[in-house]
């Protein structure tokens, strides 16, 4: 019974679905399996995937950060503006990352010190950071980033012999770190406790506020870094870079079975969710499936991600009840 139920968990199901989609792609679609395409397909979701990692931790702790995409945009705009005014790239990156930390601190401060709900706060900073991005860069687009750095972000540079690009490699490393933190450390346990029952966590001596603040800071930092990667990858800094990514990040995390109410989910699920969205998009596009159909598929997957486990447990409960009735009457 219980191993069966374990296998039917949604995050496992997303993993299986991911493999199935991948294998289907290999079998049916020309050009899907090529090194170039795979490198591209994964690299194309690198920023969303990077931001999904801290977002997973946040959502497990019952919080959310809707300002990630705006922070990406602000970081991109800043990178562009500073580069254009002659700063050295080696100076720009730390400065931009610091801005990310500051943005995260603001979110975290408003949530922990002022005591506002994170959804409300980050809807505000979503507008604020995006607004600052357009203040910084206006409607300009900055290009001509240094090839020495740009080449590390693009999909044509891969780890020799593989289709793994450097942003993706970074993602893999960070995903492992995040998985260990979430599932094998005391901090991870605390995150689950905070998400499931904040009061109880606080009464157990867990430093709830400090941990939340830390999470927001890390999210800001990673989003700012994603902004740098994005800028280099497209070779174009614009204030509207990555607009709307927040929904994509959240959709991937939710698709991976992370409970938005906090306290439940696995990092594996979130990673599988991100990759599934990326691979599916690539595969559907290769097969000339119209964009609107892709949008519908994303929606259906999200609905299925919560409906399927529900149906499965209803059915198994029902079967169990029948079995119990049978034994007690027999």
């Amino acid at each position: 019974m219980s191993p069966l139920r374990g296998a039917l968990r949604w995050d496992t199901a997303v993993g299986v679905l991911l493999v199935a989609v991948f294998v289907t792609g290999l079998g049916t679609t020309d050009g899907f399996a090529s090194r170039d395409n795979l490198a591209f397909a994964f690299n194309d979701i690198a920023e969303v995937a990077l931001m999904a990692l801290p977002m997973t931790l946040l959502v497990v702790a019952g919080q959310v950060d809707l300002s990630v995409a705006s922070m990406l945009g602000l970081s991109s705009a800043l990178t562009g503006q500073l580069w254009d005014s002659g700063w050295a790239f080696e100076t720009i990156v730390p400065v931009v990352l610091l801005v990310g930390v500051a943005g995260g601190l603001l979110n975290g401060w408003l949530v922990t010190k002022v005591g506002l709900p994170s959804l409300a706060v980050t809807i505000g900073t979503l507008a604020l950071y995006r607004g600052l991005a357009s203040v910084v860069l206006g409607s300009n687009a900055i290009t001509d980033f240094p090839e020495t750095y740009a080449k590390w972000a693009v999909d044509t540079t891969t780890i020799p012999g593989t289709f793994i690009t450097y942003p993706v490699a970074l993602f893999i490393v960070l995903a492992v770190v995040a998985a260990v933190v979430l599932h094998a450390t005391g901090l991870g346990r605390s995150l689950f406790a905070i998400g499931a029952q904040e009061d109880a966590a606080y009464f157990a001596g867990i430093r709830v506020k400090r941990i939340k603040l830390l999470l927001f800071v890390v999210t800001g930092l990673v989003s700012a870094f994603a902004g740098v990667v994005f800028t280099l990858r497209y070779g174009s800094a614009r204030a509207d870079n990555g607009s709307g990514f927040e929904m994509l990040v959240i959709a991937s995390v939710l698709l991976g079975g992370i409970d938005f109410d906090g306290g439940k989910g696995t990092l594996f699920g979130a990673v599988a969710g991100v990759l599934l969205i990326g691979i599916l998009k690539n595969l559907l596009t290769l097969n000339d499936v119209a964009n609107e159909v892709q949008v519908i598929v994303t929606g259906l997957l999200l609905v299925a991600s919560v409906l399927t486990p529900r149906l499965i447990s209803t059915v198994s409960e029902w079967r169990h009840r029948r079995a119990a009735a049978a034994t007690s009457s027999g």
Partner: protein
Amino acid sequence: ALAVTLAGCGGTTKKDSSDNGGDVKATDAKANPDAPLKKGLKLAFLPKQINNPYEKIVDDAGIEAAGEFGGKGKEVGPSDASASSQVSYINTLIQQRQDAILIAANDPNAVCGPLKQAMKKDIKVVAYDSDTAKECRQLFINQASSEEIGRSEVQHIAEQLDYKGEIAILSATQNATNQNTWIEFMKDELKKPKYKNMKLVKTAYGDDDDQKSFQETQGLLKAYPNLKGIISPTTVGIAAAARYISGSSYKGKVVINGLGTPNQMRKYVKDGTVEQFSLWDPKKLGYLGSYAAAALASGQITGAEGEKFKAGKLGEYTIGKDGEVILGPPTVFNKDNIDDFDF
């Protein structure tokens, strides 16, 4: 290289990278003007946004044109017009080994990398409607020369107003490059002595938002009681302005001209609010793009200045500076011809 630059000046700055990213376009291939158009060419149209009504017309016409010379066209694209969203489609088109990509770029630079890759793989790239950086495509099909659009707008409205009176411009956003170029040419044209009795009082911005443009029109008419004419070189603006005026007391007293689509403007031309307006035929734009791409893919042209190719029923075109091909002067629509068009 990294070590050198670091040692050299303590960091990588913009100055160091000016000669980065060499020219990929180095096409050694010679043009063969007599080569026949290849059969079964695969052309892909990549609009700014798949739901843009205007680009839909362009692309449909292009796809139809491809049928004429035995090619196959298709339209793919994102549903949001952000800078980056076109990139994954370019990649896909490369994987699908299309013969040519026709793109209306959302961002001249963000699409550059993948387009260069496409050209490396011998996929021809033609920009239309909105150009990419020059080195990232072989041709740009320009709907009309900017100078011609700007000057002709002024000429048209001047004729309607008998060369006297106050006029205003209702533009899109403050940063729209093509709008601003046109407005510069309009101002330049107005400097000519024959317009000495005309005065440009204000340039308003409706942000290509129907409601905003509507309100801006209202504002213009309130603020400048002697206003005699409005030029709106944007399809959203001219339609909103016409809608406001047709339902107001200004109808018949204020002239509206600019760029609009016949379907949007038909009602106002028929009810007399608007006498005439202009636009290039987006169908012809698509048609020309399709033929240009086919000519490239068949080796008739390479994209060099001065080369010539035949674009079906539109006749012969010559490639101008920087690989630009100009569709031709805009069509002027009025009561007599508007029913011949449906877009």
